[in-house]
């Protein structure tokens, strides 16, 4: 068991960052916290400051304006930390991937532990993604390749 596994064995507290998201992903993140999905039974809790957080849930394509603040939030999160990219925008930039105002995804700004694509992702998908980041469930997607011989 390495140090990271040991640190994230129990309850992880998440801090939600909106990095230029359209609110779709934010609504789904809030949905995960409602009694219907109830992530608190797994010890996952939304906290109000990055200084209490173990993981950052970042939604949005990372606009130029928010980049500096996002890095400040990242730096104020104590180590060890997980960065979770929620939604298609933070995974690959979404439909704003080549816009002058965005940086085309979270992967270009911060080291990301796990990407959860979806526009917006289902609450179940967010739950699955966080569980996958903690190593509780396996990955389900793989590359599809085909060549006509």
């Amino acid at each position, binding site marked *: 068991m390495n140090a990271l596994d040991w640190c994230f064995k129990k309850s992880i507290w998440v801090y939600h960052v909106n990095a230029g998201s359209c609110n779709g992903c934010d609504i789904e993140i809030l949905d995960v916290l409602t009694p219907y999905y109830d992530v608190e039974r797994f010890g996952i809790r939304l906290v109000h400051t990055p200084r209490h957080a173990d993981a950052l849930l970042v939604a949005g394509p990372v606009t130029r304006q928010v980049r500096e603040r996002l890095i400040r939030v990242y730096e104020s999160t104590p180590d060890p930390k997980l960065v979770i990219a929620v939604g*298609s*925008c933070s995974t690959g*930039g979404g439909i704003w991937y080549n816009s002058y105002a965005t940086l085309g995804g979270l992967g270009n700004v911060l080291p990301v532990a796990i990407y959860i694509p979806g526009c917006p992702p289902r609450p179940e998908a967010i739950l699955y993604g966080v569980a996958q980041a903690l190593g509780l469930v396996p990955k389900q*997607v793989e590359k*599809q390749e085909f060549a006509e011989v």
Partner: protein
Amino acid sequence: MLKHTISELKEALICLEAGQVTLPYPFQPHPPDENFRGKPVLHTRKCMSCGACGNACPARLISIRDEAGIRTLSFELGRCTYCGMCRDACPQEAITLSQQFELSTETPGDLLIRAEFKLVTCRECGHPIGTERQVELVREKLKASDMQLLDMSYLELCINCKRKIFIRTPALMLEVVS
């Protein structure tokens, strides 16, 4: 104080009536609605790589590249918005949106679909015309149509070479169509 306790008791009664509302999701599967648009799947048996999906995609994630006699169709699903425009645009119904939504991954490279198709080149100038499947499809459609083409070999010419040949020898056109 008493008022407060009573209202709390009332709330507890409501909660008892409602029973358990929490989904047992990670322990039991929770399938989405049948109209749900999940991860797009490319049926490579049907696809003829015409590129209609690439023109329709709002996120411009479908790219088509012709290189060394091979056409590569690639879907970078990392930025897919699951709108289903590619499925609607596809003339061959080769793209469907599956019910899969648990797409989380450590590397966005896992969300890639890549398909390679053989290209047919013009017999005169060597310019790529289309994929073998496209040419085959046109040939079949022409055979089934009322137009009685005598010489099918004109399918192996690119549009510029066809024009040049017909301009040089207009009689050929009559020969082909008659």
